[in-house]
């Protein structure tokens, strides 16, 4: 984080600023998606962009996720740098062929000759009473696919810096924003900065336990860390920021220091992001662990609509505190 006193922006504003700056810098950057122009998306993240850049660069599409993602792939191969906007991450299901069989593989299949410099921006996260088809966090699927990079910003600062990196990257990058964070405020420099991929950020320094957290779970982890502090447990919170590439070194170094680890991510638990990170820690820090590596994720149920049910499915600060405390009970 830069040191001078800074402007505060919301997460949504930070995303918008990154897009605006990159569109000013590079005329090849265009946005494609549903209701992205005058409506500025239902989340209003893109408000104002069409006014500045016009409809030839902020392009409203039909409700054709596969179609406009495919068009973005082809445009990226031929000189543009498109940012395709998938309103809800749940709709990634419709674009998987274009992302996985096309975008992710074209560079490799062409022996390095063709490139697909595109960004797929989408959302994740539950707790909005939006039910099972508008609440998923499916990022682990994409992290499994070689050729893609997957970015999960957790603060306005990171969102701006990582999105600029994503747009400048020559590979297909999936950039996933938690809907619940759009209004979160934080310091964001007004100058042009980028954040490299594959570099985790230590969001809080601690000595007793390492909490690896992604996206909005970073905020959950920071809340839990404050509660743990009161209980005399000093938690280090590590945010990988990009889960592919994953900064294994920073995580392992932290766990070697703390000897305990919990991984938390909002995707489903089973076969989720936490499995990769936990198994990696359990392997590489094996001789340093004082307790098993624990995982916390969304419950393995379709996200229910009913508030008391939905609330039970998402990892909370309290649940995380309980898991961490559990590590200190047994010896």
């Amino acid at each position, binding site marked *: 984080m830069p040191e001078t006193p800074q402007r505060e922006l919301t997460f949504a504003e930070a995303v918008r600023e990154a897009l605006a700056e990159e569109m000013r810098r590079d005329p090849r950057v265009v946005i494609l998606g*549903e*209701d992205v*122009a*005058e*409506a500025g998306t*239902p989340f209003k993240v893109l408000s104002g962009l069409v006014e500045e850049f016009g409809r030839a660069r902020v392009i*409203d*599409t*039909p*409700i*054709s996720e*596969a*179609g406009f993602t495919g068009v973005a792939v082809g445009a990226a191969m031929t000189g543009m740098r498109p940012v395709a906007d998938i309103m809800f991450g*749940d*709709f990634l299901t*419709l674009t998987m062929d274009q992302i996985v069989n096309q975008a992710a593989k074209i560079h490799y299949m062409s022996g390095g000759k063709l490139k697909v410099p595109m960004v797929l921006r989408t959302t994740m996260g539950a707790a*909005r*009473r*939006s*039910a*099972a*088809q*508008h609440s998923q966090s499916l990022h682990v699927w994409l992290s499994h696919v070689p050729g893609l990079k997957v970015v999960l910003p957790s603060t306005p600062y990171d969102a701006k810096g990582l999105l600029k990196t994503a747009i400048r990257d020559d590979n297909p990058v999936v950039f996933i924003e938690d809907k619940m964070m759009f209004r979160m405020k934080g310091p964001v420099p007004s100058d042009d900065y980028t954040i490299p991929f594959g570099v985790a950020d230590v969001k809080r320094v601690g000595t007793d336990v390492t909490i690896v957290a992604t996206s909005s779970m970073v905020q959950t982890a920071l809340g839990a860390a404050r509660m743990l502090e009161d209980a005399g447990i000093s938690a280090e919170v590590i945010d990988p920021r990009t889960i592919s590439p994953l900064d294994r070194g920073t995580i392992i170094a932290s766990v070697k220091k703390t000897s305990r680890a919990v991984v938390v991510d909002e995707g489903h638990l089973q076969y989720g992001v936490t499995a990769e990170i936990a198994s990696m820690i359990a392997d590489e820090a094996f001789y340093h662990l004082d307790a098993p590596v624990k995982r916390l994720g969304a*419950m*393995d*149920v*379709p996200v*229910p*609509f*009913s*508030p*008391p*049910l939905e*609330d*039970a*499915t998402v990892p909370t600060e309290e649940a995380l505190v309980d898991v961490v405390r559990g590590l200190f009970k047994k010896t």
Partner: protein
Amino acid sequence: MTTETRADRTDEAIDAARGLEFYSQMVHIRAFEDVVNDLYKRAAMPGLAHLYSGQEAVAVGVCQALHRDDYITSTHRGHGHCLAKGADPKLMFAELLGKEIGYCGGRGGSMHIADQETGNLGANAIVGGSTGIATGAALSAKSLGNHRVAVCFFGEGALGQGLLYEVMNLAALWTLPVIYVCENNLYNEYTHFRETTAGEILARPAAFGIRAERVDGQDVRAVYAAASALVARAREGGGPAFLECDTYRYHGHHVGDIDRAYYRSKDEEHEWMTTRDPIGRFGEWLCEQGFAAPVTLDDIRSQAATAIEAAAQFALDAPYPVAGDVWRHVYA
């Protein structure tokens, strides 16, 4: 394949009793949506809802042409379909409020409400997502020989989804008893359909060899007549059809969409609400035919309002599911 406009087609016989039934259903849907909007404004409903007000003639006209055990699939804007197919407003409100006694035990909510008993295979929050399901239900009907018909309701926004074309091809190849009902309310969320829809809508199904018709979706008699003919044809093995209904949604895309000036004008809204309102127009016709006096219609409306209020109250009073039950129903 023929593509034709049926707006001025003469009715299937609608007698007084039937006419009052149509009217009552449309009025109940309107009253239901008014209360949903009110619940939202009072912060008594979790999440958002997409109101059907203005489009009542489509759901009622089509569902009146169906048997109770015929199938429908519905959309995010599905309350009207659900009611028209025969669901109980009490259990619907309970679902919208996330209550255990709701149609889906509160698990589904507004965008996933389903009622197996009346053949409603469910609302769907994926635009176009239920087109395969409706077509599959029609395949079942044909395979099992049970003479059912499946109706797939969707907004014109679903014309953007490739799945629709895949399943229309299948339905045509296999002569399936499915009717694709396209409710063209002019907008895909906040974008006019002309900006998202190239060429001619009816030419699309027609290209797959599917009978395609267009009807004034604000005229319940016209919708009923067109739907009755297409449903009968499908039931007799005549194959799939596509019915475009011109209609309009009175509220925002969802209950929270209040400032709409950037995508549609107040004048346009006013025009549709005053000159083409499906309830008003049909009410006039009922009176003209001598099927009802204005006061009868007033009574129907006020009774509906009372009944719907009571249904909402029932739901407000009902208990939530217990959190421990969150694991139930993941697997059958």
